[in-house]
Every structure is written in structure tokens, then in C-alpha cells.
């Protein structure tokens, strides 16, 4: 399988008043046209890994890597203009909560059209047609109506579908989904995941699925990376999650309640300082 993305020894750190905070500390992985899950708790560096690949890290951050390579393009050497041209067109990102990630004073249709016209020189009618097509592709039943709605006028699930439409409309090869379903109701989660899954498969995209939900990731992805304190502590095929070896992963799996079994109290993580080394 050809490599879409290669990351070697990625480090992201932020200078603060109290010294350098290292959010990502030497992460390495590679990705083909597959679904890779990155799991970890808050502050484990999973989101910052995704943002570093997008080129959306805060300006003050220092990013280093031995290799940060997308389809033969060295992302660290690319100019800001080159990276901007790639964002949305070749690498796109879905954010967590459509309530905040869609511009409240712009109709959904305009936001999708705008994403398309940032990368392609096409007329308004053509852009509108493609946006409507995309809305239909994310299984919105009445695209014409939703096109003219404002984000506050749609439900969370509908908003997240619009977000997916907006990010996929320019046809990216790699999609980074940063907790794409965490803000949604459980029933809607499955719907949105189904749509995402189908589109990723149909279009042959690579997917990085960032989440804190171990079980969701393992059922949805081909491969899982477990991050802790800015490092990868374990990488394994999703199907073999049950055979995880690292004590952190094992501990996490152990914390989950089981249907039918009465486990009181639920076990909690017993963190070992050496995990964070």
C-alpha cells in the first residue's frame, strides 16, 4: 500500500510563562488509505498531532519532526501559501461541535460553496450544484432547504453532516476527524459515523479518527494508536484491542462497564509515573 502520510518523531511544544510545554513528544506513524484511530485522554496530544498535520497549530508553537511527509510533500518545508492551498483541498478536518464550528451568520450553503471556491475556479451556479450534491451525499433529505438555513436552525446531527459536506466538497485525500461525534447524541453518533464511513470508503480517503472513546475507535477503525502524555504507548490492529499489552491500555479497557455484569465499584486507572517517561 502506498503511503499517504508519514510522520516520524513529531514534536509540538508551546513556550509559556512557566517554560516549554511539550504537547506531542516524538510521535511516529504512517498511514495509507486506511482508517487510523488515535485514542487518548484530554491532554494526551492527540488533537495537537492532528492540528500539526493540518498546519493549524497556534503561531507560537514549535513543531519539529524527522519526517512529516504527505504524498511526497515535506509539510515542514512547505510555505504557508502551499499549506493553505492543501488545506481543504487535500487534507481536511472535521471539528467536534457544529454548534461552534459553523459560522453563525452565514448560511450552510454559502459555507460549503466558499470551501469549494477557495480551491477551484468555478462559477456560482456550478458551485451551488456541487454543494447541493454534497449535501445529498451526507444524506440530507432536502438539500435545497438546508442550503439556505443558518447553523442555528438545524440540529446537531444535521450540523455535523453539513460540516462533513463542507470539508469533503473539495475532495481531500486525507481527512482528520477530531472527535467528530463527541458532541452528538448517541443515536445520532452512529448515523453520522455511518455516513463518514461510507464516504471515506467510496472516495478512497485516508482517515485519522481522533477520539477519547476506545470502543468507538476500535469498532470503526482498522488500526488504533493509543497516546499518553504526548507519546504513543501502543499501536495495534483494532481487532486485536483485547490483546493490548501496555498497562495503560489494559487499564482503560478494564474501566469499562460490561452489560450484564455487576461491577461495583468500577475500577479506575492506577497511573504509573513511568508511563509518561
Amino acid at each position, binding site marked *: 500500500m502506498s503511503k499517504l502520510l508519514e510522520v516520524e518523531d513529531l514534536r509540538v511544544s508551546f513556550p509559556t510563562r512557566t517554560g516549554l510545554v511539550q504537547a506531542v513528544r516524538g510521535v511516529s506513524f504512517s498511514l495509507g488509505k486506511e482508517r487510523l484511530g488515535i485514542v487518548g485522554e484530554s491532554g494526551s496530544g492527540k488533537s495537537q498531532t492532528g492540528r500539526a498535520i*493540518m498546519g*493549524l497549530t497556534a503561531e507560537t508553537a514549535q513543531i519539529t519532526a524527522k519526517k512529516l511527509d504527505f504524498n511526497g510533500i515535506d509539510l515542514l518545508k512547505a510555505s504557508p501559501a502551499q499549506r*493553505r*492551498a*492543501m*488545506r*481543504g*483541498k487535500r487534507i*481536511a*478536518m472535521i*471539528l*467536534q*461541535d457544529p454548534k*461552534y*464550528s*459553523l*459560522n*453563525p*451568520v*452565514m448560511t450552510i450553503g454559502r459555507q460549503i460553496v*466558499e*470551501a469549494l471556491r*477557495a*480551491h477551484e475556479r468555478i462559477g456560482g451556479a456550478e458551485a451551488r450544484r456541487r454543494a447541493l450534491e454534497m449535501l445529498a451525499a451526507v444524506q440530507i433529505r432536502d438539500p435545497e432547504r438546508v442550503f439556505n438555513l*443558518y447553523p*442555528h*436552525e438545524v440540529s446537531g446531527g444535521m450540523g455535523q453532516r453539513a*460540516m462533513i459536506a*463542507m*470539508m469533503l466538497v*473539495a475532495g481531500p485525500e486525507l481527512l482528520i476527524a477530531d472527535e467528530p461525534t463527541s458532541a452528538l447524541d448517541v443515536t445520532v453518533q452512529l448515523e453520522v459515523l455511518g455516513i463518514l464511513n461510507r464516504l471515506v470508503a467510496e472516495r478512497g480517503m485516508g482517515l485519522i479518527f481522533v477520539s477519547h472513546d476506545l470502543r468507538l475507535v476500535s469498532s470503526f477503525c482498522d488500526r488504533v494508536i493509543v497516546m499518553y502524555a504526548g507519546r504513543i504507548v501502543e499501536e495495534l490492529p483494532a481487532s486485536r484491542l483485547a490483546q493490548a499489552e501496555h498497562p495503560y491500555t489494559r487499564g482503560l479497557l478494564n474501566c469499562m462497564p460490561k452489560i450484564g455484569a455487576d461491577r461495583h465499584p468500577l475500577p479506575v486507572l492506577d497511573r504509573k509515573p513511568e508511563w509518561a517517561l
Partner: protein
Amino acid sequence: MSHTETQQSAGRAKGRAYAIAASIASFLVIVVTTYLGLLAVTFFIGRVVPIDPVLAIVGDRAPAHVMDRVREEMGLNLPYYQQFFLYVKGVLSGDFGTSVLTTNPVMTDIRRVFPATMELATVGTLIGVAFGIPLGVLAAVKRGSWADQIVRVIGLFGYSIPIFWLGLLALLVFYARLGWTAGPGRIDVVFEYTFTPITGFYLLDAVLNRDWAAFRDIFAHIILPATLLGYFSLAYISRMTRSFMLNELHQEYIVAARAKGLSERRIIWGHALRNAGVPLITVIALSYAGLLEGSVLTESVFAWPGLGLYITNSLQNADMNAVLGGTIVIGSVFIAINLLSDVLYRMLDPRTRAR
């Protein structure tokens, strides 16, 4: 379209019409209440609190029966609630009484002086908006840089320097020393007999008359006080723009806009400012209203024949009808501007629109 669908959409249209009627009704209630409040306050300040208006007319040596007669003629012997009723009735028919000082009806005086104030405040606000918003955006985008510091210092000066001092200084430098602008007043005496006001807004009148010499002269007169007022409004607007923009630039939809690959320019002006513009409407409206009522000092320094100067002169001569009339006009304009900003707010922010 099926029968039930037609019925449904008719029902929806009816519901919408009802919602619009309700919002107009509540709008009217607010206007009427605010206006009555304004009238009550001005009435009691003007009639109940200060010196005896009869005294101002007949002088302090008039015999008692003259004073009583005048008091009766003016209706001042009536109970307050009747006086208030008559007063409201007069105001509603545009009758503010007669000015003791100019012997004109107050309404005529105000019609003459108010356009001067409004023209000055409008040009000042335009200057404040044209410079304040870009400066505020710049400061927010380059937060912490030297550009941000400079904008903040400019704003700080605008906040803290007294306008009469800056006005005199500006007159001294740009009029007396450099001769770049015209001096006090609205228009040169040369044009007194050739220039015919139409709307009372002289810049507009000059354009309508195609009198370009007058236009140049009027512009040379207004530019200094308007720039000064504009500077004060700039100080306020740029500060607020900066803080609204900083707030918007930290929102998630900005990250999403970047993830789409939009240019920074489009993100800043098309997305962030479009959102920051919603609360900015209120700020600009308040600043405009502030210039309308608060240009008293500027008008005094520049001998600008506007409402501020008129009220000041009337106040010094105990001409209460004129003072009250002027106050009511300013209050009405204040209410109108606030309502207008509410309407604009609704137009800019889809979340506040009635559906």
C-alpha cells in the same frame, strides 16, 4: 400541491403574520413608554425643579398682579398633572413654546440649528468608523505587536484628552499657523447671501446647488471639528472592535475556516468581522448618539451654530422652553438611533430574527 399542504402553508403564513404583528406591537409599546418617560423627566426637570419661568419673562421688579396674570396665561397655576397633559399635547403637535431669547417658536430654532449638529456628528462618525474599525481589526490580528501598542495609545489619548483643549490646539496649529483649514463657524461670511440652504446639511446643499466654491469652504470649516469628534469616536470604536475581534478570532468556526483553506484576509474580514459587526452596530449607534448630544464643547470651541450651542445659550438665559425643546429632540433622536440599531442588529444576526 395537495389540499392539506395548501392549508398547512396558509396556517404557517398566518402564524408568521401574527408573529410579525406581535413584534411590531411590542416595538410600539417600547417606543411609547420610552418616549413618555423622556417627556416626564424633561417636564419635571424643566418645570418643577428650576427657577420660576414667570420671573424670567417679567423680571424681578414686576408687581404681584402682573406676575399672577402671566402665570395664568402660561397655565402655570394649573395642577402638575394638567400641566403635564398640556405639555405632552403641545409636544406631540410639534409645539415646544416660544423661545424667550430668540422670540422664535422653539421648533423653528431647532429646525435651524439641529441639522448643523447632525451634519457634524455624521461626518465625525463616518471618520470614526472609517478609521476605527480597520485600526481595531489590525490591533486584534497583530495582538501584542507594536501596531497593537500604537493603536492602544491612539485610543488612550482619544479617551483622555479633553476635547476643548485639543480643539483649541487644532485651531491654533491648522487654522492660525498653517492656514490649512478654515476657522470657526460653518461657512464663510462671503457666502452668506449667495448660499441658500435646502436641507440644512450644508455639504449636501452645496452639492445640490452645484456651488463648488461653497462646498470647498464648508468642507474646510467642517473638517477640523469633524476630525476631532471622529477621533473621539475612533478611540471608542477601535477599542471595541479590537475586543470583539479577539473574541471572534478565538472561536472554533475560525479554525474551521482555516481548515477549509480560506485566505487570512477572507477569514478576518469575511468571517470574524462579519460576526464582530453585530455587537459593533450598537457601539457605533451609541457613539453617534453621543456625538449628537455631547458636542456642546466642540460647538462652543468652533462657534458651530448647532443644537449644543443653542442649548448652552438658552440655559445661561433661563430660556426653559428652548432647553426643554432641545432636550426632547436629542432624546427622540437617541431613541430613534437605538431602534435603528436594533433593526440593523436583527438584519445582521440571523439568530435574533423573528421566524
